[in-house]
């Protein structure tokens, strides 16, 4: 492991009774990078996070953190900040009490006042956790993850269930941490979140790594473009056009997925010169993700 690597996973396998949760996982996590972990439900994301945190023991393979620290060791836990899907934070404790409590677990921690300001929780210090809105609660959990000045933040679906404004507020807080050099592992179902925040995307499915690379590289891996058009041609005629792989009906006409948009559009206009409302867009991360996971299934 070099100095720019904070975690190495080698040949990791994990089973729950008869179910293979992870198989042959090999990953490295670089310092100062945001890695998004994507995958459908049951892909093995939460198992991987629990293994990294030492919440469940490694059955086969190896995980090395910050050099040779094992997951769950005192030194590893001191350097990782965690935001879990279900935190079960005690509703009767106030924001300040929670930050003070989690701060006490670390030898060096952020000051409560500065952390409250960073998380946008000013004026809420004395309010009990159970009386906060969903967005405010997520910001408190983010603050608890950050209180120990972690080298690595592991965030499991941090914006799940939040409205767009609250999501963007949390994105800004995550972005600020990234700018300060904190490495981040972001497990999310929101592809736009990964697109917005991540330097690298790892797609898991059925316990295996399907794709691993920069968001743009993942998109390019699925070389398909989306074409929207209003045309008199039937769906069958559209499906017969060159490079068209998929045809769907949308409100404004048809949506085609093409492996060569130029060839498809030329043929389309030749067949129907009256076609209008033509839009061509490159594959977004969501389309790439769906393509990868559907093909794997």
């Amino acid at each position, binding site marked *: 492991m070099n100095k720019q690597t904070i975690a190495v996973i080698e040949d990791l396998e994990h089973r729950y009774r008869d179910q293979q949760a992870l198989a042959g996982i090999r990953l490295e996590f670089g310092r100062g990078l945001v890695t998004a972990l994507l995958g459908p439900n049951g892909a093995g994301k939460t198992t991987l996070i629990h293994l990294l945190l030492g919440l469940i023991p490694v059955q086969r393979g190896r995980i090395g953190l910050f050099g040779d620290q094992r997951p769950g060791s005192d030194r590893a836990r001191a350097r990782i900040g965690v935001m879990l899907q279900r935190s079960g934070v005690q509703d009767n404790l106030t924001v300040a009490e929670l930050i003070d*409590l989690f701060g006490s677990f670390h030898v060096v921690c952020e000051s409560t006042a500065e952390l409250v300001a960073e998380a946008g929780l000013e004026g809420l210090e004395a309010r009990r956790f159970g009386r906060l809105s969903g967005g405010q609660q997520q910001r408190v959990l983010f603050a608890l993850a950050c209180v120990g000045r972690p080298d690595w933040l592991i965030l499991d679906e941090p914006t799940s269930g939040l409205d767009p404004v609250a999501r963007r507020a949390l994105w800004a807080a995550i972005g600020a941490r990234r700018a300060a050099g904190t490495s981040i592992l972001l497990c999310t179902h929101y592809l736009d979140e990964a697109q917005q925040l991540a330097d690298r995307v790892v797609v898991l499915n059925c316990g295996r790594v399907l794709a691993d690379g920069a968001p743009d590289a993942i998109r390019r891996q699925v070389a398909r473009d989306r074409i929207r058009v209003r045309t008199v041609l039937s769906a069958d005629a559209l499906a017969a056009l060159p490079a068209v792989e998929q045809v769907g009906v949308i409100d404004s006409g048809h949506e085609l997925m093409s492996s060569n948009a130029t060839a498809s559009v030329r043929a389309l206009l030749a067949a129907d010169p009256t076609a209008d409302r033509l839009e061509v867009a490159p594959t977004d991360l969501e389309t790439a993700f769906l393509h990868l996971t559907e093909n794997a299934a």
Partner: protein
Amino acid sequence: MNPVSAPTWAPTLYLVQAQWLNLVRTPAYTLPTLLFPVMFYGFFGLLMIPGGARPLLGSFATFGVMGAALFALGVGIATERAQGWLKLLRASPAPVAAVILGKAAVAVLFGLVIVVVMSAMAAVFGELRLYTGQWLGFAAVMALGSLTFCLMGLAFGLWLSPNAAPAVLNLIYLPLGFLSGLWIPAQQFPGWLQELAQWLPPYHMAALAHAVLGVREAEIGISLLHLGVFSMICLLFAIAGWRRLDGVR
């Protein structure tokens, strides 16, 4: 940001403080746990049974302390385990032993609050007079006995679901108190029930309390042995339950 240094003893104290605040701000725990034994003691020990202030102080204090420990640890841990709080603490650098010790300390403290309230009632309304050493000994018996039921609560909390925990613990708590002679002295039970009572931990905790309060002699060594063995059995179940957490998603 400017870092702040935290003292090394801080986590345990903060955990005790946080769990104390969470407990006392939960009326569903504090009201029944505090009021029921105190109310029963006032009714039976001070109003209904002449001369009951002294013996029933030992019995109902045992009943109260047992409830405080069983429900704080049993329901508390089962709920926190299911809702993810325990997982979050395990993933954080919180000293794991302090998480459990903090909860037990809070349960013992709350039990002692019940003991102090009952003792004050006994002194004021029941005119009970004891030497300082007896009061302190009584508190010590209650605090040590409470640990046995903390371990029992911990074992149940690590194995039961949060929905099952309150029901199961209530099913155990009340009959255990009755069969141990906390409501009616075991000496008034039929012979076979007296035999059974002598195998139950609250019987031995109450026996020690009665000995300190000067109600009746007790076989202190045997009572301590019973409580010790029962505590060890609960500890083994608790350790197995804790290890089971590793395999739970």
